[in-house]
């Protein structure tokens, strides 16, 4: 194949001229109120500061001018954003031929699915946190499992590419095999992602955070299933050894991706929506300049990581872990990932205490 540059080298320092993918939470409003929502979305979300459709189209124009390859729409629930389909059409007209949408699936009725299929180039990621109603609904709310299954049935036979997104938690870790079978039965690819303590996820992190044994099982499970997607969220598990997990297997925040919040604020990724990581706002700044010049991006995310991991021989594989999790748990980036699989064994540092916000899961 090609003489591929080491990805870390290509994206360090000045980094890429533009992100490969931009994640864009178009609204914080959502018809559901999941216990671990990374954006604290819900039906009650205040949308007054969110970008208007005209402003959103302007952002699409900026992303096209910067030669961003892909937009990944999320939220909140993107289908409750007024004019969302018009925004998709505008993005296609600007050359984005594949549009990824993270959705809870509950609003995917027949007419909407037909509209999306007619649009073409749509890639849906449907969230489902268990292969049975009990496991899923404990996290995502009563009746959610049935609604998502209904959407999957309605998508059957369409040309819309789809994944089932499964957040791997302590309470549903036993569902991996069943989720894989469920995805396959519905023509979808399974995408397993990491629970992170951002948004409401911070409040349930202590209760839902997988155990070290579960992480070890997941690593072995993923090693045996290279077709399962992970959204590059489990690269910290590369410290277990074996083949690196697929994808980039590295943190892409501010290097290969970034996040646009509903009000136009820009952050390194969806899990770093803290004021200290705010790079700027697209109502005030041009996207390309912000990506290139942001002090937050350049100083905190594009430099060679320092700190406790610098001398660890597993660093080349795990990259020191997820900055978002480190910051959410301990308020700093120069520590091992709180779920570092070598932390205890090698004495690299004490596992940080959870933040005061951590509390038991309140499902419902």
């Amino acid at each position: 194949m090609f003489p591929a540059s080491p990805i870390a080298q290509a994206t360090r320092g000045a980094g890429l001229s533009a992100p490969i993918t931009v994640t864009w939470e178009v609204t914080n409003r959502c018809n559901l109120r999941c216990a671990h929502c990374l954006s604290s979305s819900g039906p009650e979300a205040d949308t007054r500061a969110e970008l208007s459709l005209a402003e959103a189209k302007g952002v699409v124009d900026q992303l096209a001018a910067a030669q961003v390859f892909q937009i990944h729409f999320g939220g909140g629930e993107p289908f409750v954003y007024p004019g969302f389909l018009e925004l998709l059409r505008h993005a296609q007209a600007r050359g984005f031929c594949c549009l990824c949408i993270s959705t809870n699936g509950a609003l995917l009725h027949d007419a909407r699915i037909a509209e999306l299929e007619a649009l073409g180039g749509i890639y849906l990621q449907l969230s489902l946190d268990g292969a049975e109603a009990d496991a899923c609904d404990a996290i995502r709310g009563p009746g959610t499992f049935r609604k998502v299954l209904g959407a999957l049935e309605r998508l059957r036979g369409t040309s819309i590419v789809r994944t089932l997104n499964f957040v791997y938690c302590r309470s549903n870790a036993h569902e991996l095999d069943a989720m894989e079978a469920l995805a396959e039965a519905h023509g979808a690819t399974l995408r397993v992602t990491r629970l992170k303590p951002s948004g409401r996820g911070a409040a349930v992190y202590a209760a839902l955070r997988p155990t070290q044994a579960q992480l070890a099982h997941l690593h072995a499970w993923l090693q045996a299933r290279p077709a399962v997607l992970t959204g590059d969220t489990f690269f910290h598990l590369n410290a277990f050894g074996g083949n690196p997990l697929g994808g980039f297997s590295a943190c892409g925040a501010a290097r290969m991706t970034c996040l646009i919040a509903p009000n136009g604020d820009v952050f390194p990724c969806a899990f770093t929506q803290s004021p200290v990581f705010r790079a700027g706002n697209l109502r005030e700044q041009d996207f390309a300049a912000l990506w290139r010049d942001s002090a937050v991006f350049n100083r905190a995310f594009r430099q060679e990581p320092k700190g406790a991991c610098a001398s660890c021989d597993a660093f080349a594989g795990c990259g020191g872990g997820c900055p978002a999790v480190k910051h959410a748990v301990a308020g700093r980036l120069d520590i091992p990932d709180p779920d570092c699989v070598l932390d205890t064994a090698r004495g690299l540092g004490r596992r940080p205490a959870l933040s005061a916000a951590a509390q038991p899961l309140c499902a419902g």
Partner: protein
Amino acid sequence: MASALSIAPGCAGPTVSAAAQAQRSAVEPGRCYGFGRGFTFRREAFGGILYHYEGVKPDPRVTFVDNGFLIDLLETVRERPKLPLDALADAVQAHFALSPAERERIDAFFATLIERGALVPR
């Protein structure tokens, strides 16, 4: 531009190897090629990125190309749709007095893109 190719790995001698012949034969003589559905690219400081919108494992969505000269070639393919691909490679080889090893690298690049559907016959 030619110096960029000199960094390329490859150990072909002064004659064209069997592998190089196979790579060259992947390009249909006299045929024009364009980009396949869902493929695009952009230039970067280290070379460029080839992106496949429909890439799903094991087919990669993103490929880093660490050679600006190869990105120059892709731009030429995009800008000159009526130029046969083998004619482009011949012209580049003659213009820059490329060695057989360097030419082999271009042929391998095109062969890989054709195999992946990034370049398709027009």
